[in-house]
């Protein structure tokens, strides 16, 4: 739909730092690799799920949550490598069209966890594929100002929505590994999703 204005380049870390405060009402599913690690380090919450393996499936997991908890906003924080591995998921989300589904794609053009080998994302407009697949709202941004502007627009729009966020590699090392056991991650997410969302929302607001 539009591009962000010129500004300071985003990284995985700075994009998450800008986006996470907008997602406090969402059930969040984070793709494996640096995305999960930074999301955990910057703003861990019980209703934020970190996928440590099963690369490609973050959007499928988020769609599953959206199908069984349609009243709950769901945000998938994906990467370009993850999404390219499971492009069929764009078709599934577009076809089933959950209205409160927000798909953020942190596109650094690389498989960061394995040494920044290039993906093909710089030559493929993933947000246009999403739009063709049936996402109602899509945009591409390149800086924090545009990121926040579009998160604000999507907060009041009917989804599914996809925001492609162009990033550059972070300076320095990645965030620490997720300090929680996988069983504990699943158990707390199940508790958060099945306990009734109103009290959780009130607690955080």
């Amino acid at each position, binding site marked *: 739909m539009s591009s962000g204005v010129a500004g300071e380049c985003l990284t995985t870390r700075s994009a998450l730092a800008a986006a996470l405060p907008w997602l406090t009402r969402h059930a969040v599913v984070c793709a494996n690799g640096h995305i999960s690690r930074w999301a955990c380090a910057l703003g861990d919450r019980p209703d934020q799920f970190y996928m440590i393996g099963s690369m490609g499936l973050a959007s499928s997991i988020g769609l599953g949550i959206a*199908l069984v908890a349609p009243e709950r906003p769901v945000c998938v924080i994906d990467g370009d490598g993850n999404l390219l591995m499971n492009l069929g998921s764009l078709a*599934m989300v577009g076809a089933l069209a959950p209205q409160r589904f927000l798909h953020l794609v942190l596109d650094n053009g690389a498989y960061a966890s394995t040494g920044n080998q290039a993906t093909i994302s710089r030559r493929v407009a993933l947000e246009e594929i999403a739009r063709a697949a049936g996402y109602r709202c899509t945009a591409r941004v390149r800086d924090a100002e545009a990121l926040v502007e579009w998160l604000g627009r999507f907060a009041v729009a009917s989804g599914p929505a996809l925001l492609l966020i162009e990033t550059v590699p972070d300076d320095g090392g990645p965030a620490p590994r997720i300090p929680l056991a996988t069983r504990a991650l*699943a158990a707390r997410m199940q508790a958060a999703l099945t306990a009734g969302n109103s009290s959780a929302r009130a607690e955080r607001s």
Partner: protein
Amino acid sequence: MTPGEELAAGLVGAGFDFFTGVPCSLVASLITALEPRGYVAETREDAALGLAAGAALGGRRPVVIMQNSGLGVSLNALGSLQQIYRLPCLLIVTWRGHQGKDAPEHLVMGRAMPQLLDAFEIAWRPIALRTLAADVGWAADEIARSPRALALVVPPGVLE
């Protein structure tokens, strides 16, 4: 009642409440019976496992239906999602290549499937028409006792 309808009713009666997968002719009657119960047609078997994981995080008891060719597609998801997060997931996997009698593309997986399921610590049993209720009961009890992926394997002829 077709065998597929009987199995579908057994699954619902045992508490399974989210259905997705990719079709195989051996379970066509089951999928037909589950469509009115919200069966979600997925694009790939591993994506169906992702969908099922999300449903399980939302408190559901999911079932994922697939041909055993799709088990090959699914192994990473099973090993790095369902099994380590201990998410309940009943697989209903058809046994193409059963006893070496099938089209060539099914023979390698038909032979390897039992060892693959065992290697991924996925408890499984083949179903038969006369034991359907007991087979579903076993799966429901095992998943309730210890949430993880389990498999009911469907040989040719059982649900057709």
